[in-house]
């Protein structure tokens, strides 16, 4: 006897397949609404520093951090008339005031913005005589302050002929007396290049801890790899290049750069400072346009994991500039100030951001 399928049979046979289809469709039902964040503190302000009269724009500075304020140094400053002033500087004593009324540039005797770090007449003449499109430029790195004197490390860079062409010749040291708008370049055996590029990395500022001056440096060694190390010299030999050694976590202070321990690997700028009873590195992730802090067990110790603090205004193109933390502007225990420059359309220019932590660093890193 032949049995003809009816609608019920058909439905029963197709039910498992239908179930599979429905279940597969249902699996796509996730709609992300928002990604929230928790925070270790609050960005209390992020202002655009007003541009001084007669100046076209402000880029991000490096700095020397004094107790009374932060001494900012710009690699170059373009005036309204198109003139370029290398290594102009300004002393910033208060972040709120800088946000409200801008900075007051250091002026020379003629009343024009002064170059803190200037080429010698011989260097200027040598630049004029060159025909390969390259020019020697002095590029400030930052440094530390000790006994009222500012110790500024800088690069002797051959710049050009292309816009991105820059070759380091070596690092020099310039000493700034209190209130001065120029600094004195240290010379050893007639040469201002005190450290060759493969001798010491001194490009990330420094500080004085106990009986030693510490200077941090980060050097690109491969794509996306920029290890940071620390160099140091006894305080009575700050101006002696050979006194600078690098720190090894196992052997202490050693001479070979290749023996230095890596404190961190950061592509962006790193600023180490004493903070909250310990040491802290403030870093900028140039890809995320986000600032982080990293606790350090000591000024020569490895940097702990990153903790995000705030997002900067992303640039319209390329990366943010600057990113230094200015400990000289701190006026309350849990507050830090960071400068950066951005081309972001909403508020282009030099920014000074103030961030307040909710708790001590030790509590955050529990």
């Amino acid at each position, binding site marked *: 006897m032949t049995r003809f399928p009816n609608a019920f049979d058909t439905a029963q046979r197709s*039910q498992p397949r*239908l*179930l599979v289809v*429905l*279940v597969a*469709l*249902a*699996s*796509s*039902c*996730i*709609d*992300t*609404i*928002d*990604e*929230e*964040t*928790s*925070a*270790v503190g*609050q960005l209390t302000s992020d202002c655009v520093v007003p541009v001084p009269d007669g100046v076209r724009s402000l880029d991000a500075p490096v700095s020397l951090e004094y107790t009374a304020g932060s001494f900012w140094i710009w690699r170059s400053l373009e005036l309204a008339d198109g003139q370029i002033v290398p290594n102009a500087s300004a002393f910033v004593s208060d972040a709120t005031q800088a946000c409200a009324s801008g900075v007051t540039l250091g002026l020379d005797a003629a009343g024009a913005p002064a170059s803190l770090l200037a080429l010698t007449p011989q260097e200027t003449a040598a630049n004029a005589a060159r025909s390969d499109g390259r020019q020697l430029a002095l590029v400030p790195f930052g440094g530390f302050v000790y006994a009222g004197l500012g110790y500024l490390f800088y690069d002797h860079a051959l710049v050009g002929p292309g816009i991105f062409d820059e070759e380091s010749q070596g690092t020099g040291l310039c000493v700034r007396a209190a209130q001065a708008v120029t600094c004195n370049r240290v010379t050893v055996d007639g040469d201002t290049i005190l450290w060759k590029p493969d001798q010491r990395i001194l490009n990330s500022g420094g500080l004085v801890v106990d009986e030693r001056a510490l200077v941090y440096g980060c050097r690109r060694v491969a794509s996306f790899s920029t290890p940071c190390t620390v160099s140091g010299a006894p305080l009575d030999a700050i101006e002696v290049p050979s006194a600078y050694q690098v720190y090894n976590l196992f052997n202490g202070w050693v001479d070979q750069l290749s023996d230095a321990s890596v404190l961190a690997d950061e592509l962006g700028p790193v600023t180490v400072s004493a903070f909250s009873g310990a040491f802290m590195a403030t870093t900028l992730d140039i890809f995320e346009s986000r600032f982080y802090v990293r606790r350090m067990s000591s000024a020569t110790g490895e940097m702990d*994991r*990153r*903790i*995000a603090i705030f997002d900067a205004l992303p640039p319209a193109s390329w990366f943010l500039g600057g990113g230094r933390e200015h400990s000289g502007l701190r006026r309350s225990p849990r507050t830090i100030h960071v400068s950066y420059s951005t081309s972001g359309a909403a508020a282009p220019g030099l920014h000074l951001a103030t961030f307040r*932590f*909710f*708790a*001590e*660093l030790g*509590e*955050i890193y*529990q």
Partner: protein
Amino acid sequence: MRCVLTTLLATTILAISAGAWAGDAAVRSPLADDPPDVPSTAVPGLAWPRLTWLGYPRRVPRAWSASRDTPAMNMIVFPRPADMAGGDFSLFTLQFNRWSLRSGFAGFIELEVDARTSGSNAGGLPSGNGKILWRGSYAYFAAFSLDALARSMCQGCAIELALQYRHESQHYTGSNAGNGGEEDATPEPYVGDDLIFDLASLQRAGNWLFAERAIGMWFLPDRSSYSAGVGLDLHARYVHFARVQPFISGYAEQLWGDMLQGRQFPDAYRVRALVGIALVSALGEIMIYGAGDVGNRYGIRGLTEEATLGLGVRLALASGPKAAGR
């Protein structure tokens, strides 16, 4: 919209399939005619109080809740695979003439794959390619049931007050293949320790059973990323049939963020609904449901706010309508 329709359809088909399987389900629920509880270990010579070891945790079961924090044997099939091993038991019950006291333990461990369901593992359980997110919780509770007051209101009614201390922590496991990567979970919220007070009630109206629970949470200072919270739990089921009972559950909670380890955490909210059928037995029930939710995720993804639709199965031990009727 496609998700909504397909999930509803899938739930409906599952329900119809289960209903067909039940076949002879058209037996009236004995709920209304349930005799009073007869303790397995009564104190000799005393009519009241009566002491019972290991029993139903609550007069008004929590296992019906739409909350993901419900301690039960639970498997979420979609949208992400999540398996929970959990239980909720009274270690002892003291039953007096007018009230009863239950005190015991609740706890769970939940493993959720941090990815959509994409297949099944060797055991046939749903699986996905992602990190495994862990949640572990334990709680001690005392529940005080006002039996006489509830009886005076209606046959089968219940009113219950409960207080519990809960701890919950969350973690994650990377892939055994090493592709999970390390993750700093400190920015993510941490439930930690809290005291939870709730007031629950249960009513029978014809063939319908309703349960409600209002919840208040107070988190211990410096032990959680939340300070306080409130929740509301609603459940309705059609109890005409003894073995197969359609139900709907809804749950909503609001948690207020707090400072923990120098970090300020944001508020969180969750709204979730279950629609499905419960296959009832003396031991408990199998709840097959479709779920929809909006709000913060759980565990170390608690900062993500999302809306999902999914499917799941729950084995709710010691929690069926017979439990509610006692």
